[in-house]
């Protein structure tokens, strides 16, 4: 019966560590949120499943030689988040932003969420038991960018230990955008402001759309090369889309390639959800900061819009679309539209909110570049 003993010793039950059980529960919680609550299921489903898989005792699925350890190389090298960013670029229509470029400033303002979170993370060192280095704080701050691949990319460079917690916080709060944003938006605007109807967007031609990714890339190369990998891959995807001459590459970037990488990326992120990396007071701090980051970014965007209306009162901007500057495409643009329609059901803000929405993606990539350049 030596075989049976050997078998019992090889079971999960006899080897379970409490932390692993808790982390498997966390994984199932993420699966529940993804499936039942439809919290960003494209990412949270693979992340949750990866968390379950990697915490199975003995199996070592995330240990060296396990499948998740191989998939994780795609994050470590930066390849997966950058390919996702390329695919997102291929799905992005810059038209609404090009039609009304001043909405870019809303996308800029919302990045206050990032730097506010940075300060918050540094301040949390006051709390006994929490200990965030400057790099940690910078990686956490990017959650405020409301941009999954950017968060993962920055975290993998600055604080790989926190990668799991940061990605979970980033995607969870993105899913919570419809809950977090509206109260802040209502609190900071008057009924009159929420009723502002915006001028219809002008027509944006094909050449403008083709030129834009090139211009954006040059600007980033000149001023902020540390943001060039992110912005470059994003621009590549967008150029593939807008050029009109490589339709098959565009279709593949937006579908099969991004889908395959999403599965692998999600599983790999999940593989970083181990007990000793996640079950720490720091994780609670990260989750608290994430809520702060989104709220702060939302408020900054709305207030910026109000400021713009004071500075140039001719073409008024509905301040609700400022909230879309956090990016979280297209959820926050939908939220802006919905809150606007509460006041006037015939006021369609969705298209107008897409401008700050995609500007927010650029804004957070720029902020990521600053952090990558200055925090070492």
């Amino acid at each position: 019966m030596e075989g049976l003993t050997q078998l019992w010793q090889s079971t999960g039950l006899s080897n379970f560590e409490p932390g692993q059980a808790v982390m498997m529960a966390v994984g199932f919680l993420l699966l529940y949120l993804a499936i039942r609550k439809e919290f960003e299921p494209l990412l949270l489903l693979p992340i949750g499943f990866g968390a379950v898989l990697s915490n199975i005792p003995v199996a070592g699925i995330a240990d060296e030689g396990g499948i998740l350890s191989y998939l994780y190389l795609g994050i470590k090298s930066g390849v997966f988040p950058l390919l996702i960013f390329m695919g997102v670029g291929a799905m992005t229509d810059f038209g609404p932003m090009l039609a009304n470029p001043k909405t870019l400033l809303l996308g800029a303002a919302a990045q206050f969420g990032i730097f506010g979170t940075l300060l918050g993370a540094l301040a949390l060192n006051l709390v006994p038991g929490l200990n965030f280095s400057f790099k940690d704080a910078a990686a956490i701050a990017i959650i405020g960018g409301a941009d999954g691949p950017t968060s993962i990319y920055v975290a993998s460079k600055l604080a790989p230990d926190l990668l799991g917690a940061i990605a979970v916080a980033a995607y969870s709060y993105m899913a919570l955008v419809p809950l977090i944003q509206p109260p802040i938006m209502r609190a900071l605007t008057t009924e009159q402001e929420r009723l502002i109807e915006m001028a219809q967007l002008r027509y944006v031609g094909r050449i403008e759309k083709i030129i834009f990714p090139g211009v954006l890339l040059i600007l980033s190369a000149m001023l902020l090369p540390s943001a060039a990998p992110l912005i470059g891959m994003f621009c590549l995807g967008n150029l593939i889309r807008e050029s009109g001459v490589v339709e098959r590459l565009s279709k593949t970037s937006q579908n099969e390639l991004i889908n395959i990488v999403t599965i692998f990326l999600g599983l790999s992120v999940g593989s970083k959800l181990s007990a000793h990396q996640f079950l720490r007071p720091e994780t609670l701090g990260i989750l608290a900061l994430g809520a702060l980051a989104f709220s702060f970014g939302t408020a900054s965007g709305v207030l910026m819009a109000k400021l713009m209306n004071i500075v140039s009162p001719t073409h008024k901007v509905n301040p609700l679309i400022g909230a879309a500057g956090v990016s979280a495409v297209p959820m926050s643009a939908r939220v802006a539209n919905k809150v606007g329609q509460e006041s006037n059901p015939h006021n369609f803000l969705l298209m107008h909110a897409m401008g700050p929405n995609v500007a927010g993606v650029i804004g957070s990539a720029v902020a990521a570049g600053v952090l990558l350049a200055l925090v070492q």
Partner: protein
Amino acid sequence: MESSLSEFLLSGFKLSLIGMGIVFMFLSLLVWIINITSKILQKYSLEPQELPGYRGLGATAESEDAEIVAAISAAIQWYRYR
């Protein structure tokens, strides 16, 4: 890394200032370039602009509908990716 927390926070504050400065500078520059580009393209009539500049508030309900359809399809395109 700084030893005392206040120095630590000060560094963070400086970084935030520089960071937001860069973000605004970068995106403002982009606004300026987009406007310039658009003007140049219009000047040389490089592409037929359906109606240059804003069309005003008098847009019909029909075009609103078309707009909302376009917006939704653009949004759906994103498929909740970010």
